[in-house]
């Protein structure tokens, strides 16, 4: 079997499983995902920030696409509709920022969609800086101007995620991170209590809204991961036995 065929198999199988499970979960069937409490804590902190009249910040990463983590930008945008609803945007304290023009444009489009055709011209989407360090340099003063009660970090980050988290926590804000890249996750592990690691990142947006499609995504990912693990163990066993 060539790599191309393996690629087609994984993608084809994912598509089929997603469709099948989406249909199955449209009924009353439920898929129990592993227990993870961070999204719930994040939601509570967002409510607490609203009650205190503080800003809520959603950060969509400093890149839309990268070779190592190509899906993280899209994933951050896919999470956005669950968090930037019209109710969230009403008080003008829900801020959105990203470090890439594409992310800002898409985020703006999503927010405009929730505003039913974009009746408001004051959309709280901004770009603190177009590179990781300029993003950091632009974002930190923002935490002074709009002290955040809650910050959600999604998408593509590097090590600078640790400084963003530090800046928010110094202002008394709560940080929830579902940020990709291994370096960002390692750096954030030391700074942030509510953090999703590895494939857990992709349990969102279902962690906020467990719809049929999101549940189908979870179960598909689990089946393919299990299949891959079994294949890896079999291949390692065969290699040890000298068969391959």
């Amino acid at each position, binding site marked *: 079997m060539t790599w191309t065929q393996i690629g087609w198999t994984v993608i084809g199988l994912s598509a089929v499983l997603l469709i099948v499970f989406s249909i199955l979960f449209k009924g009353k069937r439920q898929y129990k995902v592993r227990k993870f409490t961070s999204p719930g804590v994040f939601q509570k902190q967002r409510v607490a920030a609203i009650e205190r009249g503080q800003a809520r910040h959603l950060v969509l990463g400093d890149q839309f696409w990268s070779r190592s983590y190509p899906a993280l930008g899209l994933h951050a945008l896919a999470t956005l509709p669950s968090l930037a609803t019209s109710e969230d945007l009403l008080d003008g304290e829900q801020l959105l920022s990203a470090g890439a*023009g594409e992310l800002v444009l898409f985020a703006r489009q999503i927010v405009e969609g929730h505003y039913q055709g974009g009746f408001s011209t004051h959309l709280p989407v901004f770009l603190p800086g177009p590179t990781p*360090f300029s993003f950091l340099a632009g974002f930190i003063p923002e935490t002074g101007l709009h002290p955040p009660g809650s910050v959600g970090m999604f998408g593509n980050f590097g090590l600078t995620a640790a400084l963003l988290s530090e800046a928010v926590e110094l202002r008394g804000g709560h940080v929830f991170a579902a940020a990709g890249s291994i370096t960002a996750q390692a750096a954030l592990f030391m700074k942030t*209590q509510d953090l999703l690691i590895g*494939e857990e990142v992709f349990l969102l947006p279902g962690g906020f809204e467990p719809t049929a499609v999101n549940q189908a995504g979870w179960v598909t990912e689990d089946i393919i991961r299990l299949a891959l693990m079994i294949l890896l163990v079999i291949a390692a066993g065969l290699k040890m036995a000298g068969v391959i």
Partner: protein
Amino acid sequence: MKKIFPIFIAIGTGLTVLAGYFFTLQLAPVLGLLINWGIVLVGLAGLIGIGYLLKMHVTRVAKQQKGGFYSVIVLVTFLFTAVAGFILTPEDAFFRNWVLNIIIPVETSLLALLAVTLLYGSLFIIRSRGWTPMSVSFLASALASLVFSLGYLSPQAGSVAADWINFIRRLPIAGIRGILIGMALGGVIVGVRVLLAMDRPYDGDK
């Protein structure tokens, strides 16, 4: 129609690019065209993003909001750099040196700050996260990596100790691969969901 048209474009483009990965020779001309369009669009999006950045700072200055002074500095330096870049071009040695001699020290100082933050975080990880298996193993593996990377432990090649040290050195790579496989599968599922129009991040629908 307003909703369906972007879905068709997204699915069509996504499937063509995906097919181009598997049928490189057959789809090379179409793929090249799509990628060129993509690059132009990304460039335009970057320009629009910079427009947003400038608009935010101009608004802050015009409305005399808090932090307006810093916005003035941003706007003046941006305009100065942009005009100098257009006149001298980025290939000019003076312009390049001038820009890099500002950017590199600033980024280096941020990196230094980052190093201090990470060191502080790692020293106080038990206090912030408690005695959990994750925090203890994180700290232990970080310390072990630091000790092994010093290079003082170099037993004779082929000995049991050398095998063990090599095994311990390979452990982080195994961990990274495990996490990367999980993330890659997650990425595949996100991509397939967009291709099947189950997720539509381009129009905000769930």
